């Protein structure tokens, strides 16, 4: 078997803070993505989703450092590459899009100019050919009057149109891996539906692997093949999408699912109270001992307060970091964290 397209292996990332201390913001993260797969990383604000995804492109700032681990792209460890080698990979084999499209667009150049530059950077197309390809790309991302959009400046476009233009730039080089960091969070549900559908279509056409970061379980339900749930810098659960929604194993995942008001809940179910997760996500420099979720968990036991549960296998292709699902040896298990437990 050939190596998976992307393998993140036991990655830990820290930041140096102003007072000289280091905080670990991503700890011991592993995941693999095969060709054509969509992996969703879901979690609340500050859980480390963006840091993890930016580390793939080595886009983290000066004060970030890799504490351990490897990021392998087609078998090659990206962490060993020189800046020059990385530049060749970035934007060509791996592309990234962000929540805020203006992060990728320069306000003083026309959309067409920026798109042509992106095309020239990674292919031999020049002049007329580059322009025609640009128009073709804009059409592919669902922009109906590409010629006139080409001559416009980014600020004249709506949020949804800007994000389409950014996607056009990202797919210009036919990347094998597309990282999308909350690409629809700033958009309306209707525009979100358009962009998600666009990503699916592009993927069907090209077999691109997508790593999609979101805090919205609805987006996960729409898009994911595989799901990674993060909490306070760690993966707490990993599963294929259907299994996860059928039977979330980690109490945090269960909590997120119950907290999500949905249109499709059975009639009457919406009249009940939403079950919320008490408290807030702990600050990374004040993490509780033991399981990081134990201060908010409904099933906390003594062992949860004392030692950190490992990310352990829980059935086929499933991982979960919870003492209830994977009890420590020698400790009595008196509850199960099954989907029906909450």
């Amino acid at each position, binding site marked *: 078997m050939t190596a998976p397209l992307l393998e993140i292996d036991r990655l830990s990332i820290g930041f140096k803070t102003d007072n000289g201390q280091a905080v670990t913001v991503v700890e011991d993260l592993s995941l693999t993505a095969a060709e054509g797969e969509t992996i969703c990383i879901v979690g609340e*604000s500050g859980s480390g989703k963006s840091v993890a995804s930016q580390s793939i492109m080595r886009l983290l700032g000066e004060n970030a450092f890799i504490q351990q681990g490897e990021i392998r792209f087609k078998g090659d460890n990206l962490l060993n590459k020189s800046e020059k080698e990385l530049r060749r990979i970035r934007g060509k084999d791996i592309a990234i899009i962000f929540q805020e499209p203006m992060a990728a667009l320069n306000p003083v150049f026309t959309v067409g100019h920026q798109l042509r530059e992106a095309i020239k950077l990674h292919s031999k197309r020049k002049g007329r050919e580059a322009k025609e390809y640009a128009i073709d790309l804009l059409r592919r991302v669902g922009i109906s009057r590409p010629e006139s959009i080409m001559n416009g400046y980014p600020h004249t476009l709506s949020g949804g149109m800007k994000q389409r233009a950014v996607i056009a730039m990202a797919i210009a080089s036919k990347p094998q891996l597309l990282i999308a960091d909350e690409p629809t969070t700033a958009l309306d549900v209707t525009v979100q539906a*358009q962009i998600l559908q666009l990503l699916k279509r592009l993927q069907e056409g090209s077999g691109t692997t997508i790593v999609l970061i979101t805090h919205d379980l609805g987006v996960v339900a729409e898009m994911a093949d595989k799901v990674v749930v993060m909490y306070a810098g760690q993966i707490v659960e990993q599963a294929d999408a259907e299994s996860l929604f059928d039977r979330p194993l980690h109490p945090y995942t269960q909590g997120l699912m119950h907290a999500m*008001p949905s249109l499709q809940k059975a009639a009457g179910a919406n009249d009940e109270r939403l079950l919320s997760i008490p408290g807030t996500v702990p600050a990374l420099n004040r993490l509780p001992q033991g399981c990081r979720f134990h201060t908010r968990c409904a099933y906390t036991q003594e062992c949860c307060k004392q030692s950190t549960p490992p990310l352990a296998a829980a059935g086929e292709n499933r991982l979960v970091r919870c003492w209830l699902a994977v009890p420590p040896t020698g400790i009595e298990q008196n509850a199960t964290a099954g989907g029906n437990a909450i």
Partner: protein
Amino acid sequence: MTTEVVNQESAHNAHHALPIARLDNVRTYYPIRRGVFSRTAGYVRAVDGVTLNIYPGETLGLVGESGCGKSSIGRTLLRLEDVHEGRIWFEQEEITHFSERRMKPLRTQMQLIFQDPYASLNPRQRVGELLAEPLRAHRLSVNAEIAAEVDRLLELVGLPRSSKDRFPHEFSGGQRQRIGIARALSVQPKLIVCDEPVSALDVSIQAQILNLLQDLQKELGLTYLFIAHGLGAVKYISTRIAVMYLGQIVELGDKNRLFDSPRHPYTKLLLDANPVSHPRLRVREKVVLDGEAPNPASPPRGCRFHTRCPYAQAKCREQEPQLDGSIHAAACHYPLW
């Protein structure tokens, strides 16, 4: 008032008390200024002929795409925008042209909660002072009473008393939203316009705030106009829902009926755009609402939705549909049922 409106009115009166607030054919236009002399070159017709009753104790949900005029309706109702046309009522009193002096006592009865509470909280004031200020201005003068009331408000929104001595930036987003709610409650309002109060919050915190708003409503008999993007949250908290498109209400009805069997094509497409709740419910080749809403400065003739509507006929391009008189009203020539 058209006959349709009267019918709608009587249909509701059969079930409800008199409205606590009412918009009657209201238009809120923002001038578009151009050139060195700031000539008015036209108007953004943000609210364009809206009639809406809000009944005591209910939560009226207001949904629609970005820019359709939801916040403008809320701000117009609170008399924070000048109306171009139409009338505004609060508790059987017409307030459309009230002076700021006459509005002042009413300001305590109608409050606004925003998406970003941080923007509305003075960062240099401690939370205790932030809450004491409106109390002093409107209700209480004895310091001991003010202090006791601050404690009570904090408890009401689920914050520890020690929060008094801290500054807004020391709180998380969800906690800041609780402070914003406590501040709005301090003047004992009857009606609160909640403008995207949970949109910026994490999922687990959204649920906490939605539950809090619901508990407070029961406890204090509040009425809400609840504006939001997330249809799930709106469905959860609302009694009735109004769907807005390009400055107008296109559908209005009981939340379960509206979500289960929408009548207006736009409502249907808006609901379909919402992500599914389980991967097995994915729809391949889902019909998505194409394009974007037209410019509210020059809305299309006829039905404003005709440029994007899959059912549009010749009549839709010429004649503007009105909200029909039924209790589940839709403004469409060819409603889905």
